[in-house]
């Protein structure tokens, strides 16, 4: 597979959220506003890319029986670094989504890519895979956050969209997240079926 395709597959064909249904908790929890969603998306891109690179580098040196604990240590290390950087330089964001930044450790996208891809490929390919999957995650979470923030709070990145319109509050609440996610998945299914024909 060409390097470019390696990068591209995470965005549509194997989108981690919409197709593989991985990393659902952060997608649902932090998509209430674009600010939180983009913060989360960028953190995942950083962790995923670097974890893929490191795991690809150490793969020959880690015995296969204890690979999972080793990967978890690497991922937990990267997540803590990102968590501390956000707490230090973006305290507001840390307050809003801090718990979910810590929970990137158990985000199945990261461990899933480590196991399924990084452990079998060279660092360059692993990095591109991580970057592509991370961007796929960012795109998916941004779509959901856009729908929720515009419909639920009449805002986008905190800016009013239609002055004077009373928004549908439930879209911002957990129920709205689930509703939006189900509908976005269905829309993607329709598009994928059309393309297949």
């Amino acid at each position: 597979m060409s390097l470019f395709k390696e990068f591209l597959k995470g965005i549509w064909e194997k989108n981690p959220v919409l197709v593989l249904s991985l990393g659902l908790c952060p997608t649902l929890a932090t998509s209430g506003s674009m600010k939180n969603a983009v913060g989360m998306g960028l953190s995942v891109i950083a962790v995923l890319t670097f974890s893929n690179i490191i795991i690809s580098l150490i793969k020959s040196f880690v015995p296969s029986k204890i690979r999972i604990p080793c990967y978890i240590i690497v991922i937990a290390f990267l997540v803590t670094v990102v968590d501390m950087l956000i707490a230090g330089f973006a305290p507001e964001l840390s307050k809003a989504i801090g718990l979910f930044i810590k929970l990137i450790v158990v985000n199945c996208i990261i461990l899933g890519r480590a196991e399924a891809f990084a452990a079998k490929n060279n660092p360059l390919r692993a990095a591109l895979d991580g970057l592509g999957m991370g961007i796929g995650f960012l795109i998916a979470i941004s779509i959901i956050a856009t729908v929720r923030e515009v419909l639920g709070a009449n805002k986008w990145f905190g800016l009013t969209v239609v002055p004077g319109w009373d928004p549908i509050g439930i879209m911002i609440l957990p129920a709205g997240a689930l509703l939006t996610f189900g509908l976005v998945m269905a829309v993607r299914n329709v598009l994928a079926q059309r393309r297949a024909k």
Partner: protein
Amino acid sequence: MKTILHYGLVLLLIAGVAGVGLSLVDRITKGPISEAQSKRLEEGQKLAFPSASSFGELKKLETDGKTIEYYEVFDEGKNVIGYELLYSVGGYQSRIKVLTGIEPDGKVVAIRVLEQAETPGLGAEVDALPSSDTIFSAITGLFSKKEDKSEEVQIPWFQAQFSGKTPEELIVVKTKDQKHITALSGATITSTAVTKAVKEPIELFLKAKAEGQL
């Protein structure tokens, strides 16, 4: 036996490298993290009592099984002109921590929500500034030259309502009225919680003060 030793060594090595790495990053970020926290508290202290010139040390007051943390507020001559009460309550989905500046008789000077992670767009609007920015104006603003806005601290409209109220007036109402606290639309629970975080410590504090517990 040999494999166990091998596995143990590999795990230990990776964990050791990770631990050392984290302690280095911790050294770098520790400063900014605590700075950001103390800066937020300092700004909050000034906003909750603008006429103050200095603040006392953090003190604790235990009463009715509840803990209130408070600061004494001084004027230039080191006279106590009021107090700032620090209190947390449970909101809709997070802990809300509020700093309330009061005069000695319990009248609110100003409040500042220090911590909250409520629902964006609903409860989190307790921190919303009175803003007329829309996407349209933001985009047109990119093309027209802006005059520099002065670095004036704005107070979120919801929090501004508390200024000058007595504890008895701190009641949440749904329709706008000057005498009470108008709830944020769609976020009654958060509005009630913030109001409780202001009212409850004032009442407990005044009672304890009257009984000479300070």
